[in-house]
């Protein structure tokens, strides 16, 4: 029999090393995971709270809002309203996992398997993370950001920097490029080309041409509108990018701050799109590793039961009428789907063969899962792999709440033959960030007039913006743009539902 990794609940750093080695062995040999090098850091509860308040990152620039979050978390933690996470893991290379010192040895094993191998594999292999995040560079970049913000505060005053960052934070959710590989117009090249054209005109200038009678010329203004929009890269849904590049009166350092906030938002973008998958992967991985370690006799029955206790808590999914219900638990849904895929791959039913001809009975569980983990995000993952069996098991149903409907909320579909596809489509849509975030884009700038910035919000299903918040965000936007900003809410038929116009506040005593 192999040696036990630890006895009881106590651990020391050698234990952690042994645990990590054992987990790595299973992860590599049995699961075929491919991970970044691991770095494991043991931290205290206070440090965990610190990490909470700065979105989990080990270093971050200073801003009051992080202090607010810290105060909030601290208060609820002290009162016992909130337990702290067992771990935080950072998508970087090396992949840093923070473990709480309070965890027992079993919990440390669970957490190492979960974060240092599950999440780590997902970060390294999922296409969204590959596309959008630079795991090698993120820590250096954060360090740069922190110092840059500090220098700006020294040079331009804390109030000014705070004003810019406040505004940038308000727009953070709209500071993301949603589509990869968008060719950005090179403004400098544009400028050169314009210069060359002018030179050419001068060279071939002949006053005689003026006397030649011409037909009615094309509408110059219409042309220039097209041209202008193109030059500005409009329509543009990345508001921070647009401001950084085109706001007329921002100082260079302000543009750099916007850029920093934008980059960080972009860094987190894949995480918001893959919550279910990411947690599902990590939970599935820790479950497999722990089970294997138990089978090998490296953890005792007692420790394994302790693990099962925590595991069950993590993947608990309350039903909709339970007071504890607050939406789908990504751990529960993700883990259930991963296990379901395992079942389909190894012992499919006829139904599965019909629904999932590609993977049913393929028998290579890890091959299929690794492929899924690499190439899907929540929306496509659910849309593709949520099986009728799981829908039945979780007893999913779809509610349609139309305020116009007097009779009440309609049950649109349930977990039956007629409803499977609709329920699945709807659940996938709930996990589509493109659908969750308001669709707002810059459509035009009145350059020849009062330089007003015009934004459109394309209203979907009648969900308009919250008025107070919208006004506040627009105020921030106007402050950065320094001219009027108008936001028009239009529905699918281009009917204007509402228009906001906000003017910038005067800058208090420009330094």
């Amino acid at each position, binding site marked *: 029999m192999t040696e036990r990794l630890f006895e009881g609940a106590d651990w020391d750093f050698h234990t952690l090393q042994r645990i990590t080695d054992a987990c*790595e062995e299973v992860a590599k040999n049995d699961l075929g995971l491919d991970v970044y090098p691991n770095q494991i850091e*043991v931290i205290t509860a206070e440090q965990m709270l610190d990490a909470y308040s700065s979105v989990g990152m080990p270093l971050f620039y200073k801003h009051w809002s992080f202090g607010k979050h810290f105060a909030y978390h601290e208060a609820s933690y002290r009162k016992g309203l909130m337990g702290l996470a067992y771990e935080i893991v950072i998508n970087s290379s090396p992949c840093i996992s923070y473990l709480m*010192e309070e965890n027992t040895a079993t919990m440390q094993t669970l957490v190492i398997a979960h974060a240092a191998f599950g999440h780590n594999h997902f970060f390294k292999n999922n296409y969204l993370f590959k596309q959008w995040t630079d795991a090698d560079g993120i820590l250096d970049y954060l360090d740069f950001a922190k110092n840059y913000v500090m220098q700006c505060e020294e040079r331009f005053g804390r109030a000014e920097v*705070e004003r810019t960052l406040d505004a940038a934070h308000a727009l953070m959710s709209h500071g993301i490029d949603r589509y990869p590989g968008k060719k950005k117009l090179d403004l400098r090249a544009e400028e050169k080309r314009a210069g060359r054209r002018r030179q050419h005109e001068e060279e071939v200038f002949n006053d005689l041409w003026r006397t030649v009678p011409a037909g009615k010329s094309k509408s110059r203004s219409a042309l220039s509108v097209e041209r202008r929009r193109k030059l500005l890269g409009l329509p543009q849904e990345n508001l921070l990018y647009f401001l950084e590049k085109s706001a007329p009166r921002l100082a260079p350092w302000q543009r750099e701050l916007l850029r920093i906030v934008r980059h960080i938002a972009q860094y987190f973008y894949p995480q918001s799109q893959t919550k279910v998958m990411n947690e599902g992967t990590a939970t599935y991985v820790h479950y497999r590793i722990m089970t294997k370690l138990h089978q090998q006799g490296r953890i005792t029955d007692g420790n394994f039961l302790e693990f099962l206790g925590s595991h069950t808590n993590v993947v608990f999914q309350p039903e*909709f009428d339970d007071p504890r219900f607050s939406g789908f638990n990504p751990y529960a849904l993700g883990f259930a789907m991963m296990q379901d895929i395992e079942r389909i791959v190894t012992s499919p039913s006829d139904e599965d063969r019909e629904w999932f001809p590609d993977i049913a009975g393929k028998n290579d569980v890890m091959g299929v899962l690794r492929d899924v983990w690499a190439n899907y995000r929540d929306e496509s993952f659910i849309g593709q792999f949520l099986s009728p069996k799981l829908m039945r098991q979780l007893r999913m149903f779809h509610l349609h709440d139309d305020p116009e409907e007097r009779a*009440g909320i309609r*049950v649109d579909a349930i977990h039956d033959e007629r409803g499977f596809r609709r329920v699945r489509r709807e659940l996938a849509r709930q996990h589509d960030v493109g659908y969750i975030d308001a669709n707002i884009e810059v459509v035009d700038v009145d350059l020849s007039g009062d330089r007003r910035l015009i934004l459109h919000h394309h209203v979907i*299903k009648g969900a308009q913006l919250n008025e107070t918040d919208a006004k506040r965000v627009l105020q921030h936007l106007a402050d950065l743009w320094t001219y009027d900003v108008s936001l028009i809410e239009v529905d699918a038929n281009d009917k204007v539902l509402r228009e906001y116009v906000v003017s910038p506040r005067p800058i208090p005593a420009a330094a």
Partner: protein
Amino acid sequence: MPIHIIDRRLNPGGKSLENRQRFLRRAKSLVQGAVKKTSQERDIKDVLEGGEVTIPLDGMHEPRFRREGGTRDMVLPGNKKFVEGDYLQRSGQGSAKDSGPGEGDSEDAFRFVLSRDEFVDLFLDDLELPDLAKRKIAQTESEGIQRAGYTTSGSPANISVSRTVKLALARRIALKRPRKEEIEELEAAIAACTDEDERVVLLAELEKLKAKTKRIPFIDPLDIRYRRFETVPKPVAQAVMFCLMDVSGSMSEHMKDLAKRFYMLLYVFLKRRYKHVEIVFIRHTDRAEEVDEQTFFYGPASGGTLVSSALQAMHEIVRERFNPSDWNIYAAQASDGDNSYSDGELTGMLLTDKILPVCQFFAYLEVGESGGSAFDLSDSSLWTLYERLRNSGAPLSMRKVSERSEIFPVFHDLFQRRETSQEKAAP
């Protein structure tokens, strides 16, 4: 693959401190309001304990574009009885209660914990007192002594033995003074020696060693070190605060509340300047007694009014327990101004001869019913008496208060007035 395991637990904490301070600075006015409100509900001593405050989230809001309303679709787990096409009652209990995803619970009030220092800072900042505290501290200084290294001269009582021996040892080693064992060894060798010639050599060597031992003393005056002391200005670190209050029947709850607020401020103020603050509560009717805080503010009492009894009690307590050279003595008296006429003479005498000379500060607060402005109160007997004393040069501070809101300004005013040395300014 190499795995790094790092223990971060020993890293300096308080990484978020800076952010927290920024947050507090930004929320200053809100937090101050909350602090003021919280402090009204507390006992005097508890004011300093910091603790939880709640501020409206409004000013600290971080806005985002959020959508709301419209047609909503949601997929939920745990269907029990619904079939397609059912309608659920809106706004009723049961299933309609479910919150759709993305509808985060909005927190309209924000609760968090302030540390003791933060709490007091905000509390006093509101009073605009910090500057005052700084100026005052100079007045309460006295000389103290503290160790400051070693010196080569001093009184024998201050010899630092360990340091002296250490230096001597170093010197002996450096100069190669023969050790006792070496000499003993040599002597033993001589005793055991049989060869006469060798014996002579050994004896000569022994002589040499002995001579060297004499030349190099075990402790040289050069080695001696004395502990050095320095006098440093040191604030007297303790203060006692006397709260005197008339609790006769004429004092209403409102008046007591005003008095309590005043005492509370004084306590907080003193607490910030002195490490150790004692409070003595003396209540009086026609008799005075020292009581605890609860009894002081809430214990029932009735009787006539003799202010001198309280002053006498205070005088005795000072004599017994609080030596004026060790203690900073502050006194605040609250009363509705009633005093029996026959007592005036005695009160005045006690105050000028016994109390005022030992006090840093004596404040008299005349509390009135709410609604009556300071002008409406005709001068009471006590006020008239104190006014007379003050005009004849006694260092008395006195104010009239009838509204809760006046407490802060009056407190501020009292301390500031003392700064500009007793100049007469009747409201």
